[in-house]
């Protein structure tokens, strides 16, 4: 698949946006500005951006507990998003829920998930509604490698396949669920689990944004054209701990350093430069992203914390 230059720059820009956003969140989290825990995308940006940019505006997403990347890539305003993470009333959800539970109706985001595996049954309903309403849309249902061991995953695959629902399952396989390596949780790969149900599967290099993107485009076309589910497994790695505060010893420095060499952004930048995209263009994007983040950060910090009002008591 030939990716036009503009799209390439967009892929780059969004990855950078996710990276810088997450760095800011990390900074906030480690300096006590954020209440609660945050799960960051640093190192995995290509997987969020490549999958989400393959969608149209009238598609839907169901992000996970590690959900900033999908939200940002799908258009959620960084300022409102960061404000939400900080628990400000100017946030997406009035600051109530923070990092793990954001919804963004305007951008067809049907809610990030604090309960691993709860997204799978919900995705069925979204897919069924799309089908009943005869819309030309699909829903991206995200999950991690570890979450593929929930029973709801298989149930969802079974029904999506049986009924032909337009669900695009996106697995971000970063090898670990908290401290546990995937190989200690299942003998079967995530792709194999989906293939059992006759679901079309692609396994891609989750650090190569073009690989992720072009395969996602192909699969989404397949999903919409045939009204059938598909699954992509993006193999990647999180550089930081499970949440911002995890310094547990379950991974070796060697392993981490090895993956850091596969930096999806640095490597893509090099490729773009080789591709005759100028330093200047790149710098422009970098500046733009930095500006977005600093504005977002300012917006978020400026917001007030919500006042309690009785309307949330039900």
């Amino acid at each position, binding site marked *: 698949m030939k990716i036009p230059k503009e799209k390439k720059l967009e892929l780059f820009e969004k990855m950078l946006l996710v990276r810088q956003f997450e760095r800011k969140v990390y900074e906030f989290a480690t300096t006590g500005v954020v209440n609660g825990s945050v799960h960051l995308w640093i190192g995995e940006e290509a997987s969020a951006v490549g999958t989400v940019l393959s969608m149209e505006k009238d598609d839907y997403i169901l992000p996970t507990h590690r959900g900033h990347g999908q939200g940002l890539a799908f258009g959620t305003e960084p300022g409102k998003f960061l404000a939400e993470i900080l628990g400000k009333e100017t946030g*997406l959800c009035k600051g109530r829920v923070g990092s793990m539970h954001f919804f963004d109706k305007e951008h067809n985001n049907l809610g990030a998930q604090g309960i691993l595996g709860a997204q799978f049954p919900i995705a069925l309903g979204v897919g069924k509604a799309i089908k009943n309403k005869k819309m030309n849309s699909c829903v991206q249902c995200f999950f991690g490698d570890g979450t593929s061991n929930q029973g709801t995953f298989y149930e969802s695959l079974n029904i999506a396949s049986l009924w032909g629902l337009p669900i695009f399952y996106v697995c971000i396989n970063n090898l670990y669920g908290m401290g546990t390596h995937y190989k200690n949780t299942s003998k079967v790969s995530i792709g194999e689990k989906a293939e059992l149900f006759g679901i079309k599967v692609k396994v891609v290099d989750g650090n190569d944004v073009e690989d992720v993107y072009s395969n996602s485009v192909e699969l989404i076309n397949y999903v919409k054209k045939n009204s059938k589910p598909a699954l992509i497994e993006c193999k990647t790695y999180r550089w930081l701990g499970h949440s911002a505060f995890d310094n547990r010893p379950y991974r070796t420095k060697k392993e981490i350093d090895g993956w850091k060499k596969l930096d999806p952004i640095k490597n893509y930048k090099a490729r773009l430069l080789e591709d005759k995209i100028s330093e200047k263009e790149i710098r422009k994007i970098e500046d733009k992203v930095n500006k977005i983040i600093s504005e977002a950060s300012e917006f978020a910090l400026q917001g007030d914390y919500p006042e309690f009002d009785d309307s949330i008591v*039900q």
Partner: protein
Amino acid sequence: MRVIKYSDALREAMREEMAKDENVVLIGEDVGQGYRGCFGVSTGLYEEFGPERIIDTPISENSILGLGIGTALMGMKPIVEMMFSDFVAVCFDGVLNQVSKIKFMSGDQFNLNFVLRLPGGAGNGTGPHHSQCLESMIMGIPGLNIAIPSNAYDAKGLLKTSINHGNPVVFFEHKKLYKTEGEVPEKEYTVPFGKGIVRRKGKDLTIVAVSYMVKVAEEVAGELEQSHGIDIEVIDLRTLVPLDTQIIGESLKKTNKLLILEEGIERSGIAAEISYQVNEEYSDYLDYPIKRIGSKNSSIPMTPNLEKAIIPNKDSVIKEIIKYF
């Protein structure tokens, strides 16, 4: 007026709302083809609305509930049926952590029309996994409304309200009520949430109940009037969230005595909560501590006389009333 069954009334409510709005769908195991509804509630709807609207699912309760949540997020108006209320435990995450919290979590971006129909109740030897009354477990979950009709009229009217409520409703049906008959007008009506109703006027004692226990309360009242000249007022709450404490308060001004009757387990049952709220607001009108009678703290037996010993019935309630008041 026309007399129809509770189960028919439920079906009418669904049919009317489905005819009006194609966003209304029914989701569950064997609700359509094949078995045509375990208790016959949805019989005929499949033929009328087809497989896209009367959605037969595999035996996958988590997916059933999720189908409801997802369609609701997309602006549809799902009615989700568990074959027996006990099975809601299988998909309890959807209830406790998902559908109830979406309005809150989304910062009010999403207001869901969502009905979860739960056929509960014992009395036919269905035993520990097919008899429970789980109202109190749901009552403690912020964000969920609870409708619990005791007769055909309310069954239809409350279900219609529930389908268009704008916030999730857990709708408790009772297996022993399905075949009971009651007057149901032909023309459109709904029953509002949060309004109890006096089923029988009286001045000596107030009994508050819901669902099948309203019938029991009425029987008790009839018999105690005959045998002991006790004049009992029976209040049917009809919804538990919101809860109409005012109607109880008004009644207590006359009777000064309150018995709360429930089929659910006594410990942490709905009577505990109702009792607290009534004590808080109306303790001045109470001559005695509020009395509750519910199922004894046990699994529900299948064998008839243990079932009877565990679950309140006319005789056991009368005995308690005579002892207590």
